């Protein structure tokens, strides 16, 4: 049994062609498709209909966790578990606990942001059908690709291929799964 291909990949030579093509794929109602670009293209998210990223939610959660960790850690250590009088200062005060809590806020936010980015992107994923395309290295260099995946309900080899041709895609190739 011939395996179902991963999808179709089409090449575009410049940003504006890609942009217009992306708008048309979006308007054709595809859901499982993607653009491969060597750099973040300004405005392509809107052309593709990609919604605002959810990474900030991870960041916010990380930041709050970090601040609470800092404050409670310092209270626990200096005021609860082993209180020591130092310079007649209080065992706990949010004032002196602030700098460390502030740094931990930033530290945890950074980790959560990067973790969130990896989770949202489902990375690391060292093997992906797109990476098997023999010209994929050009997609990180100077060319632009549109990939329409076969799991999309609107996908059918002939129809999708003619759409990609119509919107100006060149070298339309089937990607093996």
């Amino acid at each position, binding site marked *: 049994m011939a395996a179902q291909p991963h999808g179709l990949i089409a090449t575009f030579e*410049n*940003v*504006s062609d890609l*942009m217009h093509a992306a708008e048309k794929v979006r308007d054709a109602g595809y859901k499982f498709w*993607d*653009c*491969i*670009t*060597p*750099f*973040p*293209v*300004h405005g*392509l*998210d809107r052309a*593709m209909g*990609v919604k*605002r*990223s*959810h*990474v*900030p939610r991870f*960041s916010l959660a990380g*930041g709050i966790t970090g601040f609470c960790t800092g404050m409670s*850690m310092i209270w626990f*250590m*200096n005021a609860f*578990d*082993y209180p*020591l009088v*130092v*310079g007649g200062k209080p065992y706990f005060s949010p004032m*002196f606990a602030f*700098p*460390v809590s*502030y*740094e*931990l806020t*930033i*530290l945890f936010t*950074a*980790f959560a*942001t*990067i973790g*969130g*980015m990896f989770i*949202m*992107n489902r*990375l*690391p*994923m*060292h093997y*992906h059908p*797109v*990476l098997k395309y023999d010209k*994929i*290295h050009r997609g*990180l*260099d*100077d060319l632009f690709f549109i990939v329409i995946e076969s799991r999309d309900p609107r996908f059918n080899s002939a129809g999708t291929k003619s759409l990609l041709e119509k919107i100006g895609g060149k070298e339309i190739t089937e990607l093996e799964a």
Partner: protein
Amino acid sequence: MAHVAQSGAGTAPAILDEVKPAVLPRAVLVSNNRSFSWITEKICGIIEGRTPAWWWVAFCVALFVASFTVAGITYLVATGVGVWGHANPVNWAWDIVNFVFWIGIGHAGTLISAILCLLRQKWRTSINRAAEAMTIFAVVCAGIFPVFHVGRVWFAWYLFPIPTANGVWQNFRSPLEWDVFAVSTYGTVSVLFWYVGLIPDLAVLRDRFTVAGNRVKAFLYGLFAMGWRGSNRHWSNYEMAYLILAGVSTPLVLSVHTIVSFDFAVSLIPGWHTTIFPPYFVAGAIFSGFGMVLTLMLPLRSIYKLEDLITQYHIDCMCKITLATGTMVGYAYAMEFFIAWYGSNPYEGFTFINRAFGPYAWAYWIMITCNVITPQFFWFKKVRQNTTLVWVLSIFVNVGMWFERFVIIVTSLARDFLPSSWGYYSPSIVEIFTFFGTFGVFSVLFLLFIRFLPVMPMAELKAVTPQADPHANHEEFTGHGDPVVERGHA
């Protein structure tokens, strides 16, 4: 301006038709209209080409210099912290001077990568990778000094809140403990930020080595590229993550040097106990860091012929920031004197007169010359266009900022409240060797960086070229102004 006629709500004032505002062309960020693949070839070519002879020479010299730090540290660990020259009353000296010096240098890297990112200064793209590398390596060099100054370095982990059998916890009322968290957070976040920026470029290298058939390198670069494939759905999350990292790094970089200045400002020593320290230290840090960025980038630019990517416009921008921060530092010096007089505290007044005319006056005037006078040359376009002169001036900035920390730390301790506890500090040979060697440590790391990692963020450079603008091919589009004139406005 009430008499200016408005031609209608929401439109430009009618006067604009009469005066015809001049079209100000934006500076081109990648000159000679280079293509995307030219950028890839140029940056990857540095890594893929043979190791140049100068690199090996520089690397061996750097290793030799770094061995001084290794020797100095080994001798210190084997003998005791007394091999450094500080003793009563100057119990903090070169160790903390060098620590603050190196941390300060790192700050320009974060400023370029984070603050300029938030301010949408697109010229940052060609220098941010190298500047962030500089930050990380500077933090490594900075960390050596406090870690070994604790004396029994094998107990340095006591600085971190790790449960131990004796049950005593760290004292979070001390700015020194804040510093532990500030610097370790700074180092960690700088590495993370740098790494996130590297991911797309590592993927480029992975693919290029795969095509070239070098499986080992393709595997190693690929491992760290995390399977990046340039997907726009990924870019969307990636750009958001990058923006947030820039957003948190900005308060981070300001807080780190603020907390470093708390090491002094929270104490009671005259000359340290001042509220101007946090902003003054941050301005000084950025000033010294830009000095170091110029010191590193100008040779890199000429060795690798990167003039199309680091243009005169970039050098102008860096010089102007050096000038601005250097002038702020000069203002802070003047303000310290003013407040010492205005505050009528005899100890404070004495400290400042002693700085300028006391036993360490030589250091004070080196500091003033290098930090206040040197950057003023950057007012002149002719100076900024003379790359050699800019490089020489950047060295003066580095020297001056080292002396600033020396002046603040040593003069205040050498002449405090009681004349009976006055002293004069000179460094020991071990201290001099250890500090000298850190330049080797830094250079070794930086040379490895330029040999094995892309020195500029290729993806970001491509994004600021004119052809990255989706509207560039459509003359009828005038939404953001003339697309031909507004080059680099992606």
